[in-house]
């Protein structure tokens, strides 16, 4: 026995050593034969505001359904009424992803989930899942202010909007972007689920299971209340939802001292603003080319064009450039900045603001004129009206020498959805919104997944390498460069600059081309890599520079996501590159220049960037000093803890545990019941047989050793 024990302990030691060396994790091989995991999943998630929940939800253990591809109307009838194997998991062809089909499926109990094929084949002429009147409740127009203009009474800005993004679906909706994966699903469907001559397909059938269980429910008030309860009384508190938040990026032509908050003495500021974000029906998918990128590129190019002139011949007024994050969700960024200004918690306040110029959607001009939108209600005030007319005159004179014409809509019309509306809520500020549309948007794919490079008409000739594409000046780039020149010159005039310096202000089409390539085609390019810090450009899981264009969804900010959102970071570093100066500080000095007397942390930010790649493909990092700052973009509702606020954005995003999808075969109910029946039969039979045999065991198994007990 001792020898046995010794052998056993040796074996255990050997096993332990082998196990320690063996680090691979295997999943069950039977599981691998049953399920095909779909790795590229793009879900639709749940978002909540003060009163509603929108988006999609699956049950806790996923939703399963028999696959059916919806290609024709008869497929829809099959799914909704005549198919014999409900519930169905619908594979939606692109052409059928519209409001009527989705609402019919929402109201049916026979649909357990939808997977939408995202492709350009069969794409409708227009598709916008946003509402027809974006941000109608948090703009400036209400019963008390311009009631005849409120709720898009005069002009419907997004008439093609079908409002799908704001519906609440009780089943999961996923997007299939990867063509190879879609092919796998189609093959499974064709092998097992196809109807033969109109008769129903036979079991086993191909099915799909989608997991996207969301923790938050009802609305933000409820979700925050539950989170607070958990935090106070729970042992393992779990947060159920997070407010949408990130950062605004701002800079100014004359550096502002951030240590002094509130009203800045002797500062009159012209604000030049645009938005930084977009959204679509699915989570973290928002190419937002025409909706957002056109504005960002125009303003960045205008900053670059203005910088040398404002250093040489500074105009009397300061120009404050700002990029607002979260405007798609009831103006998160701009409402926060206005709130900070009102509370004297920002470098300037509303009394410092002289006027405001906002860049809206300016990409789809197609050689026509640009439109200057103004707010008719504030213009009833004579001073404001005079200033607005002056602004328009200055803009027209700036446009005179260029290939761009500007005009003002001839009838009384509200402002399009813009950050200027939030400023107008706080005070009478003369402002203009520059856009390529007179009445409703030219953008047929507003806030959708299809608002991409193709929508912005960005095309490159074939056979160009990525580096050649980076600097190739497309027509779209040239058009945006013209708009940027117009904006820069108007801003210079608006800030009180001299007419004589105007001709020196021109946007560089090469910069515009590089910006366009980085923001709508490919963010991982040599130019952008040289502007960003060295740790970001390293390859790895946390790298900001994955392949493809950046996505402009606001996300949950640094508390949840780690570093600053990628788009915010790009704009910050691009601004630093365009307006900053190179210093010869070391890395440690760059991180903290407070000891150096020549550097001023209150006026400038210091960025340690990779630097341009030299001939032998190595880059020398360097320290750039620029007056570029980030300011928090969290809705004031979360600071004031008014989760049901009507004045501020209350958007939150639900949390979830796992989001995945898999396909497999399902067997018929009859086979399952047969298995159960056979099992129960075997169990009962064996119980009976064993009982009988064991009770008669003495009779059956008498042996010489046993003394027979008296049986009589």
């Amino acid at each position, binding site marked *: 026995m001792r020898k046995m024990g010794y052998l056993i302990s040796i074996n255990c030691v*050997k096993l332990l050593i082998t196990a320690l060396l063996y680090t691979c994790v295997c999943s069950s091989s039977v599981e691998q034969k049953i399920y095909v995991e779909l790795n590229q999943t793009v879900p639709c998630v749940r978002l909540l505001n003060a009163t509603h929940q929108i988006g999609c939800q699956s049950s806790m253990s996923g939703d399963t359904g028999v696959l059916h591809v919806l290609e024709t109307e008869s497929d829809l009838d099959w799914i909704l009424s005549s198919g014999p194997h409900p519930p169905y998991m619908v594979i939606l062809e692109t052409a059928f992803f519209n409001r009527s089909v989705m609402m019919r499926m929402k109201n049916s109990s026979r649909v357990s989930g939808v997977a939408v094929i995202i492709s350009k084949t069969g794409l409708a002429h227009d598709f916008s899942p946003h509402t027809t009147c974006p941000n109608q409740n948090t703009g400036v127009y209400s019963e008390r202010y311009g009631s005849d203009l409120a709720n898009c009474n005069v002009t419907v800005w997004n008439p093609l909007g079908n409002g799908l993004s704001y519906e609440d679906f009780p089943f999961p909706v996923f997007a299939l972007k990867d063509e190879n994966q879609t092919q796998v699903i189609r093959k499974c469907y064709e092998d097992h689920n196809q109807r033969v001559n109109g008769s129903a397909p036979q079991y086993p059938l191909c099915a799909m*299971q989608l997991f996207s269980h969301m923790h938050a429910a009802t609305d933000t008030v409820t979700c925050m209340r539950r989170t607070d309860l958990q935090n106070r009384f729970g042992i393992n508190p779990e947060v159920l939802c997070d407010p949408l938040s990130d950062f605004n990026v701002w800079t100014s032509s004359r550096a502002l001292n951030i240590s002094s908050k509130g009203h800045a003495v002797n500062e009159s500021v012209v604000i030049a603003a645009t938005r930084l974000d977009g959204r679509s029906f699915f989570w973290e998918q928002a190419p937002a080319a025409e909706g957002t990128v056109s504005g960002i590129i125009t303003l960045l190019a205008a900053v670059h064009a203005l910088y040398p002139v404002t250093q040489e011949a500074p105009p009397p007024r300061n120009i404050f450039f700002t990029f607002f994050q979260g405007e798609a969700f009831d103006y998160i960024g701009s409402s926060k900045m206005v709130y900070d200004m009102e509370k004297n918690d920002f470098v300037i306040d509303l009394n410092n603001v002289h006027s405001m110029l906002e860049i809206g959607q300016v990409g789809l001009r197609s050689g026509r004129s640009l439109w200057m939108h103004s707010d008719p209600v504030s213009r009833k005030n004579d001073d404001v009206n005079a200033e607005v007319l002056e602004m328009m005159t200055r803009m027209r004179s700036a446009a005179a020498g260029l290939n761009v014409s500007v005009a003002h809509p001839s009838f009384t019309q509200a402002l399009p959805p813009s950050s200027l509306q939030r400023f107008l809520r706080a005070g009478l500020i003369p402002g203009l919104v520059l856009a390529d549309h007179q009445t409703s948007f030219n953008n047929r794919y507003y806030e959708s997944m299809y608002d991409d490079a193709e929508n912005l008409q960005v095309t490159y000739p074939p056979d160009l390498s990525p580096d050649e594409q980076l600097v190739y000046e497309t027509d779209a780039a040239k058009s945006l460069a013209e708009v940027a020149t117009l904006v820069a010159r108007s801003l210079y005039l608006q800030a009180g600059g001299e007419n004589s310096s105007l001709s020196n202000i021109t946007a560089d089409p090469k910069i515009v081309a590089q910006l366009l390539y980085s923001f709508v085609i490919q963010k991982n390019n040599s130019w952008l890599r040289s502007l960003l810090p060295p740790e970001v450009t390293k390859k790895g899981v946390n790298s900001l520079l994955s392949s493809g264009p950046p996505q402009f969804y606001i996300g949950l900010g640094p508390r949840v996501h780690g570093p600053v959102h990628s788009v915010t970071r790009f704009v910050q570093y691009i601004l630093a590159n365009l307006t900053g100066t190179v210093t010869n500080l070391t890395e440690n000095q760059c991180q903290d220049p407070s000891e150096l007397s020549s550097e001023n942390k209150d006026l400038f930010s210091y960025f340690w960037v990779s630097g341009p790649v030299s001939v032998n493909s190595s880059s020398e990092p360097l320290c750039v000093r620029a007056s570029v700052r980030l300011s928090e973009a969290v809705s004031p509702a979360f600071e004031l803890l008014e989760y049901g606020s009507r004045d501020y954005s209350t958007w939150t995003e639900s949390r979830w545990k796992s989001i995945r999808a898999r396909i497999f*075969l399902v067997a018929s109910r009859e086979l399952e019941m047969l298995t159960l029946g056979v099992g129960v039969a075997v169990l009962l039979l064996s119980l009976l047989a064993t009982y009988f045999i064991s009770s008669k065991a003495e009779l059956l198994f008498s*042996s010489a050793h046993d003394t027979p007990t008296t049986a009589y």
Partner: protein
Amino acid sequence: MTVAVFFGCAFIAFGPAFSLFVFTIARDPLRVIILIAGAFFWLLSLLLSSLVWFISIKASNSQDLRLQRDLLIFGVFFSVLLQEVFRFAYYRLLRKATEGLAAISDEDTSAISVRQMAYVAGLGFGIMSGAFSMINVLSDSLGPGTVGIFGDSQYYFITAALMTLALTLLHTFWGVLFFEGCEKSRWWVIAAVVSLHLLVAGLVMFPLDAAGELHITRASHYCFTFIHTARVI
């Protein structure tokens, strides 16, 4: 597939073993001890054979599929032989124990005969072998899917359960035969048991249909599982 299939397959695989346990073993604590010790011996044999196979796998070229398959077949045969060796070891252990049991019992003879011990030991081997081959499959049968998307047969769970049932009963019978052969020193009985065991293992190794193919991959898998569960211990 679902809960129905889970219970159906569980009942098919473990029904007879369960009823045998309830009616013939549960009342007598000595039999329970022998049953569990028998299960443990089977576990030990699997541990050793898995270790040998595992080391041979790691030492060989992982890209050569033919070699991997051959190593697996070698592993299975080696495992069968090792199981029989451990059965013999258990027999020796129980023989030694009989004397001790006789000493402590009220009557002169041991409270349990060698035949009964043979049956219980065989059942112990069978239950553990069945558990190892079936638990993994049962846990996968709880999910919504069934085998088949890669072309395998959809009756996989039922065939696995039936195979487990057969194997459990076979181990019981082999236990009785083996101990009888050892008692009466009839070596041809022992040889017959071993060759029958090898035959059954071989039948699994050379499948006639797709379900068997799956069994091979499963057999390799349950050696991995064993290593992992042993890691936990």
